[in-house]
């Protein structure tokens, strides 16, 4: 597979590969330390507090000190834990978090010690899928951590996160499709290059918004942090973890945040390409400057993550899942259909943009008309059903209708006669009892989890 489009990828000398791996590791750890401090400071400012400002300049070393303290703490392993899996879970989480960064482009080709090389560890034709694959293995860490703790709250957190991340990964994957169509590639470096004149966030805005929503769900961050909802689940999947193992989960969460931000930057915000006013300057996209633009874009996303956490209350779990399945996924599919249809019309049928827009308007008008017709008919049907139900409720309830014991219909009630009283011949009529099934007990609905919190 000597693909000519991959230029210098795969031609690095061994020492450069090691150097790049090391650099990515160091950058991610530093970014984690910085992000924790940044998050605490920003959230503090949003809550009229000051936040950590004692250790180091502006409190910058606070998270380093916290990390050292965390690592040196006593480790408590629950008796009911499944040891091997309990140990494996944080390792999977942290390793996968680091691995995803192998294909993130930091910048264009630069010269390092005389060797011209791209600022990216490696790239191959399906590297965006590689990030998805790594993310899906990373979920195992959380799910297994929840299971292996042998305790109820972590288990609930683990179950929640597995359902949540599968659901939001679908929406995330669908939001990539339009990008692949426009870039004509699934490799990160080529997607960045394909955004040279205009970013995909502009021309594929719906995809961008869907990705931004899905990435918050995928990283378990507020307002979608249900696997670790402290109001309901103590700490969620990591409740029983302490010391260094907990630190690994913590590290993984923050690296994942950086990873999804970097993916958003790469796929939608032009990666390392300079933003508009800067891109007028020749040298803005050459040398080491692009890495700065990349870093700024990623930091903007991280700031939005923090902003969301400081602003929004946690969603209820069933609403969250409904949003994922009934809003995000259908909207993504519809958007992909529109995008591919427009492309086919433009490229193969060779309609002009104006013609496409006009036909689009016609289709929208037709859809509105159709939905109006459907809505009227549905209303009529609903009214008919309500009338029928009212009529049924008015009819007296026969518990042995057609010779079979039947439950009452909605709205009907029956009078309970105790058997002993019936046998003795005197009917004691008690209060009318509606059937237990027709009364929806809000506190014991098996469909949903607790709504408190």
């Amino acid at each position, binding site marked *: *597979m*000597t*693909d000519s489009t*991959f230029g210098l*990828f*795969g*031609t690095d000398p061994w020492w450069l590969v090691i150097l790049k791996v090391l650099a990515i590791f160091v950058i991610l750890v530093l970014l984690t330390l910085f992000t924790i401090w940044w998050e605490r400071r920003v959230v503090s400012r949003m809550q009229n507090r000051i936040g950590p400002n004692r250790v180091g300049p502006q409190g910058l070393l606070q998270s380093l000190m916290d990390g050292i303290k965390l690592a040196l703490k006593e480790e408590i392993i629950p008796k009911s834990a*499944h040891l091997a*899996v309990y140990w494996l879970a944080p390792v999977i989480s942290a390793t996968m978090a680091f691995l995803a960064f192998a294909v993130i482009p930091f910048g264009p080709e630069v010269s390092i010690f005389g060797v011209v090389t791209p600022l990216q560890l*490696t790239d*191959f*034709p*399906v590297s965006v*899928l*590689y990030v*998805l*694959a790594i*993310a*899906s*293995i990373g*979920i*195992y860490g959380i*799910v*297994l951590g*929840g*299971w292996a703790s*042998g305790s109820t709250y972590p*288990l609930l957190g*683990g*179950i929640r996160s*597995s*359902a949540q*991340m*599968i659901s939001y*990964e679908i929406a995330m*994957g669908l939001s990539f499709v339009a990008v692949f169509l426009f870039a004509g590639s*699934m490799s990160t470096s080529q997607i960045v290059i394909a955004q040279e004149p205009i970013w995909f966030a502009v021309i594929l805005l719906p995809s961008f918004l869907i990705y931004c929503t899905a990435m918050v769900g995928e990283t378990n961050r507020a307002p979608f942090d249900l696997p670790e909802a402290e109001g309901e689940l103590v700490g969620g999947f990591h409740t029983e973890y302490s010391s260094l193992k907990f630190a690994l989960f913590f590290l993984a969460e923050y690296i994942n945040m950086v990873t999804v931000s970097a993916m958003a930057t790469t796929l939608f915000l032009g990666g390392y390409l300079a933003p508009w006013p800067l891109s007028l300057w020749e040298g803005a996209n050459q040398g080491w400057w692009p890495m700065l633009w990349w870093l700024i874009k990623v930091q903007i996303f991280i700031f939005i993550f923090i902003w969301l956490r400081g602003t929004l209350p946690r969603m*209820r779990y069933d609403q969250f899942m409904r949003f994922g399945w009934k809003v995000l996924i259908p909207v993504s599919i519809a958007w992909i259909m529109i995008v591919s249809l427009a492309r086919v019309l433009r490229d193969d049928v060779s309609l002009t943009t104006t013609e496409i827009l006009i036909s689009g308007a016609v289709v929208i008008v037709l859809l509105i008309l159709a939905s109006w017709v459907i809505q009227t008919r549905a209303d009529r049907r609903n009214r008919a059903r309500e009338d029928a139900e009212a009529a049924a409720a008015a009819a007296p309830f026969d518990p042995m209708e057609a010779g079979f014991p039947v439950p009452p219909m*909605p709205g009907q009630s029956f009078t309970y006669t105790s058997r002993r009283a019936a046998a003795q011949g005197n009917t004691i009529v008690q209060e009318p009892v509606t059937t237990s*099934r*027709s009364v*929806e007990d*809000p506190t014991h*609905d098996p469909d949903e989890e607790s*709504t408190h919190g």
Partner: protein
Amino acid sequence: MIVMLADAATESSTGEQIVFWVTAVLAVAGALGMVLSRKAVHSALWIALTMINLAIMYVANSAPFLGMVQIIVYTGAVMMLFLFVLMVVGVDSSDSLIETIKGQRVAALLLALGMAILIIWGIGNALTESRTVGLASANEEHGGNVQGIANLIFTQYLLVFELTSALLITAAMGAMVLAHRERWKARLTQRDLSIARVRGPGHAGNLPNPGVFARHNAVDTPALLPDGGISEISVPAPVRARGDERPLDRVDIDEVRQISEGETALPGEGKSE
């Protein structure tokens, strides 16, 4: 990685040899572990290991798309759903070894034997008769591995592809039909619930906390109302049911009233400041 793949297309290089022996050993170990594990969750983990190693082999054999899809679909979605079900079913449920279908073991052995023959035959054929040549030119034809696969799926194998997806959708529909529950009444929304809470006979808001004044702050001490009366509901119901509620005599209350109205000084006050 690219270099390794490039070499793999022509001759098996040292890199490929290493990758093969590592992933093959791990994949077989995962398969064995899957069969030999007692706990269902452990089996699921072993098979996930096998799948990941197979994916690495696909990538090493110049099929990066297949490798990634293998991980995303099988490891990421299918096995995750398995894990999900296993975790919902029970933390400690292990498989029972009682034979539920008669002659199951014999049938399984026969089928396994047949499968083994088929696989060995297939691999043997591939090793002796067909030769893997022209991978580079096949990939080159449509501009890359991914494009080549897309071309095959959407032209030559379109019907098979669509039939498979129809099968999967049918399975999903079946599961939905089986799990469907007809509701007798419209589901109660958050709005309905809050209205019911306010209109209902119970206490709409949070119950008052137990007494936290003066000398007692345990849960068995009732709270005082603004008028000096005692709030019965401030003591948790279980405590009340056990009869462990602390009887609050008026002496305490009067003392508090006197202190709050400034008639007596707080004990200890005046010493400090």
